[in-house]
């Protein structure tokens, strides 16, 4: 299990790394974390110790749910593959250069 229970996070790379290595992830329901984690994590309120505890407990006690989270984590990392990200950068650069030429 990997926990990343920050109150704020610019991205949250450990979430994706943990998903890529088949870990169950517990992360915060705030800031960028839900967006990055997709369906592949248990979300908890980072300000509530009870919520954090209940999230961790769910991973430990509920094997079916844990497996589902891990599976969805694998599906989620597809969004962050180097090829996908690189092609998004490439298309952004192309768009910028076209805009510049047409000026």
């Amino acid at each position, binding site marked *: 299990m990997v926990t990343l229970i920050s109150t704020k996070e610019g991205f949250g790379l450990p979430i994706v790394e943990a998903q890529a290595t088949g870990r169950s992830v517990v992360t915060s*329901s705030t800031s960028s974390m839900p967006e990055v984690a997709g369906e592949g994590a248990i*979300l908890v*309120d980072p*300000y*509530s110790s*009870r*919520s954090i505890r*209940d999230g961790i*407990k*769910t991973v430990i006690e509920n094997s079916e749910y844990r497996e589902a989270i891990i599976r969805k984590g694998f599906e989620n990392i597809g969004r962050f593959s180097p090829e996908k990200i690189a092609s998004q950068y490439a298309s952004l650069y192309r768009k910028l250069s076209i805009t510049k030429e047409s000026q």
Partner: protein
Amino acid sequence: MIKVLHVIPSLSQVHGGPSRALPIIEKTLTEAGVWVETATTNDNGAGMMMDKPTGEPQLENGVTRWYFPKQTDFYKVSRPFSRWLRHEVTRFDVVHVHALFSYTSVSACRIARNAGVPYIIRPLGVLNTYGMNQSKAFLKKTSLRFIEGQLIKDAAAIHFLTKKERTESVMLPYKMRSTVIPLGIDISVCETSSMILEKLPMFRNRFVILSLGRINLVKGLELLLEAFAEFTKSNTGQEAVLVLAGTGGEAYLESLKNLSRELGIGDSVTWLGHVDGDLKSSLLDVADLFVIPSESESFGIAMVEALGAGIATIASPGVAIAKEVEEAGACKVVERTSGLWAEAIANILKDPVGRMEMGRRASSFVRNHYSIEAMGRKLLGLYKSVISSERTY
């Protein structure tokens, strides 16, 4: 500096929510830079008085409090209070009156009005149809017509705690200025602790269903006991225990205990009496489900505390905040029949993931909507607006 006087018939803990909310309001306003004083009686429940010096200022909770002798239990008459207020009222920019059908409230409104000091009334739920039809209904209706009605119309504002309280107010057809400002709660009271209860065998390996609050008729506890009995009969999963924390009249409490024995759940129901401090934090930690089956609840401060702690909750539609909390996916609202409640209890207890998610949404919702900071900002805005607006009495 804005100077505000709060008037409340009693600060005694035996009255539950309303008396507990005021210290929070005092503290928040003080921190926001408002000069706060509170005037009240020395009432400590029927026939009881607090051991406080009367008629002289006491520094408590960071504010100045004035206690005056309660001369009668009924209506909590205190003529020394009125004498004091007539001399002092012009020291204040605004008078904030908590409760309605009580001597200090009526007296404070009249004195403020006569002195040209704007006053705000927080009616504590008694203006809705339910509150009006509860104890002393005829007296309340007559009194409203001849006494409070005019005071409400002349008030600078009526301070409702929820939209539901305003919508259901019997005064709605009349001209009144009103505003909705929810109570803020001190999030730190939602801090959970596993200190005490995990050591008690009673709670080990059992679902804990928690009810917190005063024990009286309006709380709908008969329905809860019946629903719990129904649930227990058909429950095939982990055993459950129902914990009732709160105080109430001896006779009524005894009748509830009898009912639980008749229903055959006497051994699965625990009566804890008044709880606070570590014991309360421990309960908020150990509870799997919070239940509030009240017929009517002008706010539901106990529910906010449970939500803030992150506990999955079932509430009746009579709890004023229940609907808006359910819309956020942070509680389940269930009509008041024991069958539906038994079913809802079973459904939530057999769904640990749903419970966890509901709890997470609950604690976030409380932080964003019912925090003390939010309340302080709104109250300050209200005071500024009533002080600056023209009044025609």
